[in-house]
């Protein structure tokens, strides 16, 4: 009777402690990976914002502005404004469409600053999902060359 009792205790103890341990481990993996990805996103938008800030702003036709945006998005995602086909993104599953580039214009119609942010990106951290919209975000002042009459190559 006593021996049976003890075995029951051991099983309950194992069940309780294993439950706690697994929950802790799952949380650690989930948050650890999410933070890791978020940190990569911060680096990516920071680099993209810096690139956008120093890049030549060309606007002879509206599609030039869009081409410029595409180059900035590529810089965020691939670390390269013109990535070779098949290049892997720097952050898992990040796509150029998930990067938002907004120019802030001054009164004279010149770009004054650029906002780069991540929209609608989901981190799949095995035990849970986190969705980031609007963050991380950076704003860089525009310090590049303003060339409204030139067209994007």
């Amino acid at each position, binding site marked *: 009777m006593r021996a049976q009792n003890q075995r029951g205790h051991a099983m309950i103890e194992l069940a309780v402690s294993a439950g706690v341990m697994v929950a802790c481990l799952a949380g650690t993996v989930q948050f650890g990976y999410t933070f890791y990805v978020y940190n990569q996103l911060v680096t990516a938008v920071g680099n993209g914002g810096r690139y956008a800030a120093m890049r030549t702003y060309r606007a002879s036709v509206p599609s030039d502005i869009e081409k410029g945006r595409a180059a900035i998005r590529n810089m965020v995602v691939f670390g390269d404004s013109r990535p070779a086909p098949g290049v892997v993104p720097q952050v898992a599953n990040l796509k150029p469409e998930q990067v938002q580039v907004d120019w802030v214009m001054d009164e004279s119609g010149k770009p004054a600053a650029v906002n780069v942010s991540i929209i609608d990106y989901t981190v799949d951290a095995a035990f849970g999902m986190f969705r980031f919209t609007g963050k991380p975000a950076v704003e860089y*002042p525009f310090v590049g*060359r303003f060339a409204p009459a030139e067209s994007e190559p």
Partner: protein
Amino acid sequence: MRVRQKGFVLIAMSVAMVVMLAVMGLAFDFGRIYIARNEAQVFTDAAAMAAASKLDGTDAGLDHARQAVAKLPMRWNLGTKSFTGVVVEFSPDKQSWARVTAPDNQVEISFLRAVGGPAVFTVPAHSVAAAKPVRLVE
């Protein structure tokens, strides 16, 4: 013998819990610290560029530079807290460079405190930018 056996799970659990807290602390607290550091660095990079771009050798230029830094919307702590105590310094000639320091970004420590870590960890960042920036040909 029975007395020893009864205590074993308790001891094993407490040792495992301490180790577990340390591991969780490494993942959670260090994760947040690294993010805060990175966010602060990106902020000071942008702020130094914003400040340096306003410099023109006059005191008004310095004011504009300080305003440009204060106007930046960037935040830290996973994009939730605004930067406080930001220091903006300039070259003596008021037109060569600007230096921005974000000195007191204090990350609150959650798990590492339980195993002897500090309550807060400060992650400062600073950047210098030249008034005549490098421009990309691209």
